[in-house]
């Protein structure tokens, strides 16, 4: 029996273009981002911000670094385990995903350098740390928005740049509170919407 699907003599060039578009679109939707990374890092960082405030108000200001040094490496470990398991399940590996992951690894590594090396060595003052981190997050969100063609993430990049500007204008004591609000608006909200979009697909 002939496979009807492979009867090409009836295909017109316009139909062939349609087939190409259909297949590319199917592959694009199959490989949509799950939002896991946004939710993981968003909640971990938000927990870090809250714990820092609790420690400061409880009079343990000298231990304010503790939440970051524990939560951030923990998030990195969870993410590594999650992605190593996912890579075995993923049926398609797109160049868009490779580009997006490489970008976040590069920005993440830069953030770790700033927070865990430049800051303790006093190369960057504490008052500048949140600003630098916000700018790095803005670059990653904005560019990922273009890579996965999702406007909300591009706006999220805008939120982080606006956050950086705002932090330049206020006293650094406010930085952690502004950072926490930016985490909710520019990280957790897009993360949940991305997750919803992914589960729907």
């Amino acid at each position: 029996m002939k496979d009807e699907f492979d009867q090409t003599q009836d295909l017109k060039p316009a139909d062939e273009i349609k087939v190409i578009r259909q297949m590319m679109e199917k592959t694009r939707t199959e490989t949509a981002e799950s939002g896991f990374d946004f939710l993981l890092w968003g909640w971990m960082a938000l927990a870090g911000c809250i714990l820092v405030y609790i420690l400061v108000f409880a009079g343990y200001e000298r231990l304010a670094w503790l939440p970051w040094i524990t939560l951030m490496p923990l998030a990195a470990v969870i993410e590594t385990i999650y992605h190593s398991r996912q890579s075995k399940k993923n049926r398609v590996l797109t160049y868009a995903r490779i580009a997006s992951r490489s970008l976040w690894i590069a920005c993440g590594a830069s953030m770790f350098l700033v927070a865990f090396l430049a800051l303790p060595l006093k190369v960057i003052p504490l008052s500048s740390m949140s600003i630098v981190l916000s700018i790095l997050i803005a670059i990653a969100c904005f560019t990922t928005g273009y890579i996965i063609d999702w406007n909300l993430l591009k706006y999220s990049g805008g939120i982080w740049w606006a956050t950086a500007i705002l932090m330049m204008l206020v006293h650094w004591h406010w930085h952690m509170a502004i950072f926490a609000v930016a985490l909710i608006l520019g990280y957790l909200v897009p993360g949940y919407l991305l997750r919803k979009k992914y589960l729907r697909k």
Partner: protein
Amino acid sequence: MSTFDELDPLIHSRIRLSILSILMPVKEVEFVYLKETIGTTDGNLSTHLTKLEEAGYITIKKEFVNKRPRTTCQLSSKGRAAFIQYVETLNKFIHPENNDDSDKK
């Protein structure tokens, strides 16, 4: 010679065209994904993949992951160039007015 004659016969098949269209934006894709997305049988897909592999348009990798066989396909640079050429030829056919000048030259 008509534009249809210029079309690469190796790609001028709905299944092979679909395979290459899926492979274009990806680094690698699993056999099962290709089968489900294109909506064909194991045997039919294998036949077309073999033709593309023999032409050097794709590479097929077979391995075991968690003790299960896994077949993945990748587009080669030769296959990528052939696909781009194929789409350009299709576009020439759909929009012949865009090629008048170049044809005269």
